[in-house]
């Protein structure tokens, strides 16, 4: 079997992203470097053959996903699972945790002006945030940070992909333009592997 085939079979048989070292364990002869090369070769092949899917990089792992331009077809099927959308409260809390981590509940509540315990519990249960430490001071409050699952949910490779506070206005202006174009941006999120 060619390395590409083994890597392809492994990615194809997984519903979650896999790291190169996880994939490499499928075969003793497979190094992580060989896995990376194989992923690159597969990506080029899928591109050339106009496959409806591509390999994307999510967090520190790789996953085969359909290309975004097929979303409208797939949404017609009950047998196609849609990823859940988060509530406003959840998004607000995640935004704060993502930019200020590690951060305690009290600080989150100060920014939001509302209580955060139940939303933090939900986010922890969904493994979008986790306790990453304890702060100083009274009761040594729990500090929260984002998880690998957070990156996967938002199609991010790492936290650096989020715009810095200075870049934010530029990015937002871009989003509004995109929205008025209504043209789906194929190559944006999630990050195409190797891009």
């Amino acid at each position: 079997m060619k390395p590409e085939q083994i890597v392809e079979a492994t990615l194809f048989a997984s519903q979650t992203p896999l790291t190169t070292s996880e994939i490499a364990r499928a075969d003793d002869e497979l190094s992580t470097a060989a896995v990376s090369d194989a992923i690159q070769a597969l990506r080029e092949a899928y591109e050339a053959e106009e496959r409806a899917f591509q390999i994307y990089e999510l967090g520190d792992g790789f996953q085969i996903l359909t290309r975004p331009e097929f979303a409208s077809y797939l949404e017609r099927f009950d047998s196609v699972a849609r990823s859940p959308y988060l509530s406003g409260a959840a998004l607000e809390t995640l935004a704060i945790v993502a930019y200020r981590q590690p951060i305690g509940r009290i600080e989150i509540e100060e920014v939001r002006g509302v209580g955060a315990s139940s939303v933090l519990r939900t986010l922890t249960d969904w493994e979008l945030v986790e306790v990453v430490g304890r702060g100083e001071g009274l009761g040594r409050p729990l500090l929260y940070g984002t998880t690998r699952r957070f990156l996967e949910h938002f199609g991010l490779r790492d936290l650096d992909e989020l715009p810095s506070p200075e870049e934010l206005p530029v990015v937002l202006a871009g989003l509004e333009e995109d929205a008025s174009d209504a043209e789906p941006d194929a190559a944006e999120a999630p990050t195409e592997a190797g891009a």
Partner: protein
Amino acid sequence: MILATPTERTANTPRGKSPLEGVEPFLVELDRFQGPLDLLLHLIRAQDIDIFDIPIAHITRQFQTAIAEGLDDMPLERAGEFLEMAASLVRIKAQLLLPRPEKLDWEEDPRAELVRRLLEYEHFQDVVHVLERAEAQRGRHFGKGYVPDRPAPEGMRPELAVDLADFLEAASRIPEPPPPVRVRAPTKSVTVAEKVSLVRRLFEKAKRIAFERLFEPWGTRAHATAAFLAALELARQQVLRIEQSKPFAPIWLFAGGWIAATRGSGEGPDHGADGSGDANRAGDIEP
């Protein structure tokens, strides 16, 4: 939904006559808002008010009107959050009425802290837009729908990728136990059988058990009595032996009865014929 009439849009007009006088009050569906900051920011932005020069009296009135309707239907905690904001708006309004120097330092402006919070909140609203967009884009990608189950080969269980260092690191984050506040429910009967099965379960993990462990966590006399009777019963059945080095010293229960111990072999774990047990502390369960 906010119903803004042209008159309301001129909220930022020179003082004198309130722009809201004789005008329909703002109708706001509170459910739409995450909380008081969200509502306040909406009132300010919807009327193009300069956030660095908020007409507090005007905004306070609008805020109060907006929440008055919805408060009754709100859960207590959420209502409290809106009321707290209403109260601090009133406080700021009062502070502004105090005599103050003609030219005020921004730092000393009673509104400064509120403005800082509003801007910070608005910043995170921007981040929320970015995240929403990322989520929507990710939602346009679909993973493999069906992956056949491949049960792991018999006897092979994936190893958890967690080592002792990870565990101890997590343990170091656990706060010290709070001072014990023991509020015990009225004694509920506990059976000797329950204590017998507790002993048996503990013996699966340890060769000896501190006796107080059998009742101390429950802290009632009934549990202590049941534990004592269970220990005696199990000793009679040669399941364990009871040891105490001297009066009032800790009592230990050792797996395996006296017969097993003196034979130096048998069903139960071997503790050596000397019977002291202290020589081999492996597998203890202590309080």
